[in-house]
């Protein structure tokens, strides 16, 4: 319960005060860096993080990633967020993970908590952000690069803002930090059918995409 509250609106407000950007995203560690997944509720952020955790990737955040923009280094650091994943019950079954706790606090309905091994993780540079979208069954998963405003938009649309309390200065800060993230990280749109039978294909595609990313933006920073 305490963690739920800590990760809720309270943390969002504190982040903004400290010049950090809270992004509604799950994040997993990839080597010395990390990748994040954004999308509307139900888009599959936690499910993908869970699938990647089964492949041995450490989950850094489930729902809220705290990003620190290091303009001096030209990169964005993602801090470890939550230590448990909230998954829909059908996702839990698909992942064959054991549901260990009933939902506590105020999580969305029909979600289970799945504990992940606690692990101390330093803040890691953000390598890629994937905006998750569903497409009709039968279509193949695909990943498309987003640039300029389309990239910025993905970040802006997923910034966690504490209520309507958009004070002067905060709007500017969110805009500036979001632009820095869109500039420093690779932003991708990932479209895939809602079909757990193809989940491994989706994960393979992701791994191929971020591996290929080493040749791009990242390499010159």
């Amino acid at each position, binding site marked *: 319960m305490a963690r739920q509250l800590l990760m809720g609106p309270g943390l969002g407000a504190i982040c903004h005060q400290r010049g950090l950007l809270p992004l509604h995203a799950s994040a997993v560690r990839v080597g010395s860096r990390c990748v994040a997944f954004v999308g509307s509720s139900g888009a599959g952020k936690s499910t993908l993080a869970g699938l990647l955790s089964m492949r041995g990737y450490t989950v850094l955040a489930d729902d809220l990633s705290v990003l620190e923009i290091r303009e001096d280094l030209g990169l964005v650091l993602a801090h470890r967020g939550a230590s448990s994943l909230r998954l829909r019950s059908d996702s839990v079954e698909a992942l064959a993970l054991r549901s260990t706790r009933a939902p506590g606090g105020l999580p969305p309905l029909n979600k289970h908590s799945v504990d992940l091994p606690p692990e101390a993780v330093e803040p890691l540079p953000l390598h890629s952000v994937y905006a998750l979208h569903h497409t009709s069954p039968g279509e193949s998963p695909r990943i498309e690069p987003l640039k300029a405003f389309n990239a910025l938009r993905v970040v802006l649309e997923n910034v966690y803002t504490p209520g309507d309390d958009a004070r002067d200065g905060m*709007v500017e800060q969110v805009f500036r930090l979001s632009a820095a993230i869109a500039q420093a990280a690779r932003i991708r749109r990932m479209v895939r059918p809602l079909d757990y039978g193809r989940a491994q294909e989706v994960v393979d595609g992701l791994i191929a995409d971020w591996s290929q990313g080493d040749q791009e933006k990242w390499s010159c920073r």
Partner: protein
Amino acid sequence: MNKITSACVHPIHPRSSVVKSEGLFSASVDGEVVIFSPRQRRYYTLNSTASHVWTLLDSSPTVSAVRDAMVAEYDVDPARCEMEVVALLQNLLMEQLIQVTG
């Protein structure tokens, strides 16, 4: 209607001096400038050439200075360049992203 009227009253000409409107936020992502106008609650995106002009406006706040900077950097005909700069600034003015100061 209001926008069109103001543009007609203060058209951009080759000797115009302009200044960016106050209160705008702008940032460059992948070489393209994105401007957010909190007052209009609207985003504007500039292509790479327009982005360059937007950046030049900070140090070269007149049409002729922007034209000279562009001509020095790109292989472009000065007369044509000036025409295009005027057209761009006219658009920025209509969207209230710049003001004419002289």
